[in-house]
């Protein structure tokens, strides 16, 4: 059975794919994963997942069918509005 191994370098960090291994059962998978990915204490935690159990979605982005710029930072141009608002309030033009 092929297992995919995900490792977390430090507590609180996201898990990242490290590699895969082949093992006859979960006990061996754990032993191999410890040897491959934790021997020097380089991992805080491991996820060891049978490859078949990983559900993969390709091109998961929900396409821009409509104008969805409100979901992105570039959807908000404050510069001109801020200038106008400051002008109206009579406050100094800092930045």
């Amino acid at each position, binding site marked *: 059975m092929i297992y995919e191994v995900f490792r977390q370098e430090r507590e609180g960090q996201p898990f990242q794919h490290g590699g895969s*291994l082949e093992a006859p059962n979960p006990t061996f998978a754990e032993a191999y994963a410890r*040897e491959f990915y934790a*021997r020097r204490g380089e991992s805080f935690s491991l996820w060891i997942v049978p490859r078949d159990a990983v559900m993969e979605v390709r091109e998961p982005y929900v396409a821009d069918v409509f104008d969805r710029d409100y979901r992105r930072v570039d959807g908000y141009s404050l510069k001109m509005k801020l200038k106008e608002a400051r002008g109206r309030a009579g406050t100094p033009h800092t930045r």
Partner: protein
Amino acid sequence: MTETEFEAYVQDGGQVEAGDPMPEAYRKALVKFIEMHGNSELMGVLPEREWILRAPTLQRKLALTSKVQDEVGHAQLIYRVVEDLGKPREACLEDLVAGKTKFHNVFHYPTKTWGDVGVIAWLVDAAAIISQKALLKCSYAPYARIMKKICWEESFHILHGRDVILTMMNGTEEQRELVQEALARWWGPLMQFHGNPIPAEDDAMYRWRIKSQANEEARQQFLDGYVPQIWELGLTVPDPKLRQGKDGIWEYSEPDWEELKWVVTGHGPETERRLGFRRTSRAETAWVRRAVLANAA
């Protein structure tokens, strides 16, 4: 995707994952290249293994054992990548011991003294890490990802090797001679290590972005990084032509490409003995694999 489109895709930085469609020629090239890398990790521990029992101190013995464990672990990770490309590990090991596949030139030579052990860990691993760092950008993503871990562990090996060398250089006259002799023995194979200077654009491995560094570029990087470190210890590099030009480019005597070809095709001084050792140990441990796998199933 046609082969031309695929080439443009990877040239443009596109990554390929296990299970993605890929041209057959690309898959075959990956298998050949990565399998040779796996073979080299596995065969590369044998020259060092010979010194575990003869290491000068307990600390060195443990460090060397740990390095051997790392390298065998690299072989495991790398063969796993090959398996996903369609060639089972057992087939890789069979072909290796049958002499059908290759391993790196530097692992076909004897380790005569403890000085050789230091030079291997320091300079052979340094040369290897240069090639492996370039593979971090490999178009085949599963290979590139494991290279991150491999490079990280190689950095310990270089430190271990440099520490061995520095200790010997600060020791007796006899120890310094051992280092100088070992350097003289390894310089030729080290200069051959990155291969002959084929232009990158003629190299399919480069066009597919399996490799992202030309052979000569890797060798220049090695010379640039390590010749000054060798010289500062008062060691002599056995090449009267070796010098750095004003443009920063290193000049050197032409490496012996005939020797490289002869050695990697299975005619090195230690090739047969080491493959024989691998064959014997594989046969002798077959019962362990049978017992464990039967039990675990």
